[in-house]
């Protein structure tokens, strides 16, 4: 069923812009959520674009990853929006969105998702420096694209985030339309391939020429990328596990935490409207603080920093897609994403679950299975 089209004779950025504009035009999309250059500053943010002309500033290929767009898309699809929507997302954004859909926070049926091969992204700090080294944002993106998809270094000063280096799902498997870039020569146009019936319907209506079958170069590039990432992931897991395998180690890992909760705000799958940590639950009685102090001779204030992270792990590690936004958001440079990826990997493995990939797979602990009762209580 896969139908693919070829977008030719242009550089990737122009190609993708014209492709998105065509999609919007020909498919009757009312608005499209896409990373776009801000009018007010040389920065890229997800933007809900309703005027196709604004797509000239769209830049889904940039290594900028200021927020995980899944959360934004969930806001748009939670209830009927009154118009047809499309979204251009990174693979990890799609996976996070899928998790939110499972949790009834967004609706997948109401949106056409265009996913783009992701070679990785830069932290906000790194991106700002990277962008500032180029004349224009477009130039920065062009420079990035020139090497990123063939596996070469992006820039001498800027490196992919740890989360991206450890990412083992760089292709947009859950998209309706996937834009394939790995192993492709930037000068030879790009391929958009339908992954769902909805995607197929969209592409069929575009009057664009069909693409060839998947290129062998793409396969090679992907295999190499994945090998490299697996290796990194393994090392990273080993070192995080070593550093956090005791309460003391874990406390040290998270010692710089000041309960700003930025990580929670940045996390795409932390979906609660009001987090329990901002309710009065943790505003303990003064007597309680005193008791703690009495018992140990002194208690760190604010309290409950470790507990906050443990709670977040308990709540969202089964849904963690490893996008790295928590690390990106931390003002104190705690490598949270490494820790959460590691824990997520184990909890998901325990339930035979992979976050974000299969919409039909129910999240763990969603139902009450009589048979599990005996296992759990041990009788």
């Amino acid at each position, binding site marked *: 069923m896969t139908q693919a089209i070829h977008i030719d004779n242009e550089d990737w950025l122009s190609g993708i812009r014209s492709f998105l504009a065509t999609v919007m035009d020909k498919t009757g999309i009312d608005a499209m959520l896409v990373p776009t250059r801000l009018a007010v500053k040389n920065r890229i943010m997800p933007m809900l674009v309703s005027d196709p002309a604004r797509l000239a500033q769209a830049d889904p290929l940039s290594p900028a990853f200021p927020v995980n767009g899944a959360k934004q898309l969930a806001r748009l699809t939670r209830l009927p929006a009154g118009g047809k929507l499309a979204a251009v997302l990174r693979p990890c954004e799609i996976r996070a969105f899928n998790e939110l859909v499972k949790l009834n926070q967004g609706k997948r049926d109401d949106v056409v998702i265009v996913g783009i091969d992701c070679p990785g992204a830069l932290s906000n700090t790194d991106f700002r420096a990277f962008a500032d080294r180029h004349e224009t944002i477009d130039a920065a993106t062009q420079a990035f694209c020139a090497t990123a998809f063939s596996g070469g270094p992006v820039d001498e000063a800027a490196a992919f985030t740890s989360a991206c280096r450890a990412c083992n799902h760089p292709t947009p498997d859950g998209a309706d339309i996937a834009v394939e870039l790995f192993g492709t020569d930037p000068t030879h146009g790009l391929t958009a391939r339908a992954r769902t019936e909805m995607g197929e319907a969209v592409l069929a209506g575009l009057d664009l020429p069909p693409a060839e079958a998947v290129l062998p170069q793409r396969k090679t590039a992907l295999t190499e990328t994945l090998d490299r990432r697996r290796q990194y992931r393994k090392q990273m897991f080993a070192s995080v596990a070593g550093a956090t395998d005791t309460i003391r180690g874990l406390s040290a890992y998270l010692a710089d935490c000041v309960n700003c909760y930025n990580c929670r705000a940045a996390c795409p799958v932390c979906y609660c409207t009001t987090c329990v940590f901002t309710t009065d639950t943790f505003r303990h009685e003064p007597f309680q603080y005193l*008791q703690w102090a009495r018992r140990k001779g002194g208690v760190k204030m604010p309290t409950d920093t470790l507990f906050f992270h443990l709670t977040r792990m308990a709540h969202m590690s089964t849904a963690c897609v490893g996008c790295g936004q928590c690390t990106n958001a931390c003002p104190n440079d705690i490598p949270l994403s490494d820790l959460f990826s590691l824990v997520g990997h184990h909890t998901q493995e325990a339930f035979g679950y992979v976050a974000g990939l299969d919409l039909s797979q129910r999240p763990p602990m969603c139902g009450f299975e009589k048979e599990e009762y005996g296992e759990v209580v041990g009788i």
Partner: protein
Amino acid sequence: MDRKIGSALVAGAGISGIRASIDLAQMGYRVTLIDRAPHMGGILSQLDYQFPTDRCGMCRMLPMLDRDAGIQTCLRKGLFHENIDVLLGTTLAAVEGEPGRFEVALNQAPSPIDPDRCIGCGQCSDACPVSVPDAFNAGLTPRKAVYLPVPHNIPNTYTIDPAACTRCGACEPVCPTSAIRLSAMGRQAFRILVVDDESIIRQSLDAWLGDEEGYTVETAASGPEALEKLAATPFHLMLLDIKMPGMDGVTVLEKARIIRPSLNVLMMTAYATVETAVDAMKIGAMDYLIKPFEPESLIPKVAAAYEALQKTAYRRQTVGAIVLATGTTCFDPSVGKNPMGYGIVPHVVTSLAFERMLSGTGPDGGRLLRPSDKRPVKKAAWIQCVGSRDLQTGADFCSTACCMFALKEAAVARRVAGDDFQATIIYMDLRTFGKNFERYGQQTTSTEGIRLERGRVHSIVPTPGSGDVTIRWTSASGKIREECFDLVVLSIGQRANPHTTALAEGLGIDTDGFGFVKTAPFSDTRTLRGGIFAGGTLTGPTDIAESVIRASSAAVNASRTIHRAGGGLAEKADDLVSCRDVACEPPRILAVLCRCENNPEYEKALDVLSARLQQDPAVARVKILDRICTAQGWDSLKETVSATVNRVLVGACRTFIYGKKTRGLAAAFGLDPVLMEAVAMDHHQGLAAPATVAAIMAGLSRLKNVSMEKDQGIAVVNRALVVGGGIAGMSAALAIADHGVDVTLVEASDRLGGNLAWLHQTIDGTPIAPFLEDIIGQIEKHPKIEVMINSRVVGAFGQAGHFFSTIETAGEPTTTAEHGAVILATGGGEAPTDEYGYGTSEAVVTQKELETRIHEGRLDTDGITAVAMIQCVGSREEPRNYCSRVCCPTALKQALWLKSRKPDLQVYILYRDMMTCGLSEAWYTEARRQGILFFQYRPDRKPEVRITADEAAPVSVRLHDPILDAPVEIAADLLVLATGIQPRLPETLALAYGAERDRDGFFLEADSKWRPVEALKAGVFGCGIVLSPRSIAEAVATAEAAAGRALAILTADRLPAARTTAIVRHSLCTLCLRCIETCPYDARFLDDTGQRVLVNPAMCQGCGDCATVCPNSAAIVEGFTHRSMFGAIEGAMAV
């Protein structure tokens, strides 16, 4: 609706008695539950595992609605409900009066151990020198004469086995709480004063009555001495000599009657003074004896006086109705003619003993070891029908439960002993006749690797040179098999309780030849005396599920009796005391700690604990009181009442006591019961133990953070909707309507009656039509029942307490019924078939068609000479892989009917396993006796049917006879196919009420054993053959059971919500809906806007699954807020 209250007596605290008691208590009655044994639970207290879950699960019987009326704890440990009084060691001595107002006399065995004082420390048992086999472990372990009847009971009070106790007195002084008074036990409590001037008489009477007979005897050598003793202490009987120097007997008698007017006096006289003795009787002596006399003439007179005294001690009370559930006993193979090696050959055990061997509280802590040499058991054989289906042991009945019991034991044993455990079950017919039994059997035997052998074992001998057991049987093919096993398990059958006959005689109800209580036609629970009903196995052997159903049926019938008589015997419920509103006050807690030991360490621990408590500003005061569990201690607790505190924390060793008394305590303080918290200070752990301190600190935290919001519950529509107008639907409707509750009875066809319309008679020859007419008559004239024929339910929604159903009636406008509960009794019918030539010849009919022909008088028996019947047509194999249970008795019924019409008619019954469970086995025996021929066939070798052109014998059936190991050909005039029953429960109907269907389309019950007539969703019930195939009486029992369970909802104005239920904090809710998905009780739902998650507080069981999946505490369970949980954890961590 009539709001009547009353009280009932339930005799027998086994599973059935518990079920009946809970049902009656939930309907609002005061229940007195008695049991002869010193413990609850009957035989099930010894069983850890039940199929099909291979676990226990008895607790599922606990009330789901108004949970707070009882304490939710393991039912094998105890039953605590505010409407139920449990009296153990008690028997029903006499019943007088009429239904609705029975005066009952209860004989309570005097307890030498004061349960209020016993702390279960076990020092008495350590001191006891007597060792006897422990019946709880089926004799596999020894116990002392003073012992715990069941190791897991709450309260775990020691008791004395009067038969084993030697009255040595070793236990009395070691008891730390002085709870033991041996003198209170039996005859020892009967005090006799012997007054005679001859020392030889005094001595010999002391020896006869004291040493030999066990009474307490004191002697006096003269009248004045006797009067002195009488004045000092009371006596029950005085043996008084007439001729004594100084003061003579008559004078003593006169004076004694002034001191002790009720004293029994037995005069002893020489022949010469008989006349004086006669005169003495005129002034109050009870009798006289002429000297010299033998013990034989004295002892009965003393015994009579003793018995008379016992009777005066009977507890008397008035009850409206009586439920008997005294159950059965297990067959003891050692007493029969064929002991099956039991008690003779080592390593032959009963199935009950095997159950104990598997148990964690058994002899080997749940490791499967042989009793004597403790070698692991790796190869065991189960021998079925020991004491069942055996006329030699007087059992022309099937014990019904043993086949499944053996399958379960084998499956569990395999799990316990490992995959290399080999199990062999040697059986006669594998009776997998109940719901899902067949599949359980097939699955167990295939996946669990259990070998089934058809045969009957006789010879059981020790294997020479080892502790193994060699058994011998004839295999199906006729080969004599001899095999050696590590262990042989005798699947012992049920036997009527030996006490049943005496009980029945006393109550004026009948028993059958086997000792089971006889019931009225078409009922399993109505005895022949009005107002007295029987539950469980009392009316015939059966399994747990049916026992539970019968118990519920008996309970609802008891309730009907009380209603009919006007009710009103219960003690008046206390008026609700108004509570102080303390919601806006900061917590001021009174902490009360119980002191039950007097030693310095305990004192020190109490000091430390109270200092800890006092640190918390929320604790206003800490009080230490002595032994709160005693009446005195409780009074001192009540004296602490003060308005300066607004919460009370009680730390004591046996919290169940306070659980029951909480409301009273709360009333004393003028506080809501939720503000009382009782915490267990486990004395086994010691007061200073971290676990004890943690528990108390946790309790403190719970109390600080307790929520005082109380849900008002759900208003109940006092009407029932019964769907289906067959016998089950009609019986349910009548049972409910008899309680003054409105019933709408919806029937799809144009008349009531269902399958009964075409049934002719029962197997015992009772005609069905008059019964049906009677029932329909009752329905039609019942003012509370509205019948809607030609109607069907097309849609429904709602919750327990308030449902809305849309009903479509042919030719009339659609109506909506509002009701509080629904009973689905849509029944089922004979399954269709195209096997065995059905449809190709008039000579091939189904059992229903045969019955109809007989019923309509269309069967010409003169014209036929042979009838063949094939059983299990399309049954017990996929897709209808279940036993329809009624077909075998039906085949016997028809065969016997045919034989009675035409004795030389040949009837052949081709069967797989004859499923004549319970008392219907006798009909099987009778059918064999009558010369009906039976041929067993296997599903892989089914009979072949040929329709011939021969008019004399139009049907030819060929099959393989396994006994002859030869083909057999039967020529018959008529072939009758038993196709079984298939249910009629439309999926849409089930779904409309949130009920589910099982894979065969039957109503899926919440739990096959413990809640057999209700859906998991509250307020939805099923009965009759929509539950599973069953006979008329069994269908009626399920209908009455369902009615009873529904009445627990329908008799209330509001469904009270329990204290511990889940709530939703909407401002926090993200609407991820995981809580709805995860709720096992369907208590959560999305409101009509789709923007709010709601909880039905009556259905919510407070399990906390929702709170677990909710990440931000939008779903919480009352009493388990984060705050209080943190406090509890903090309390535990702070130690």
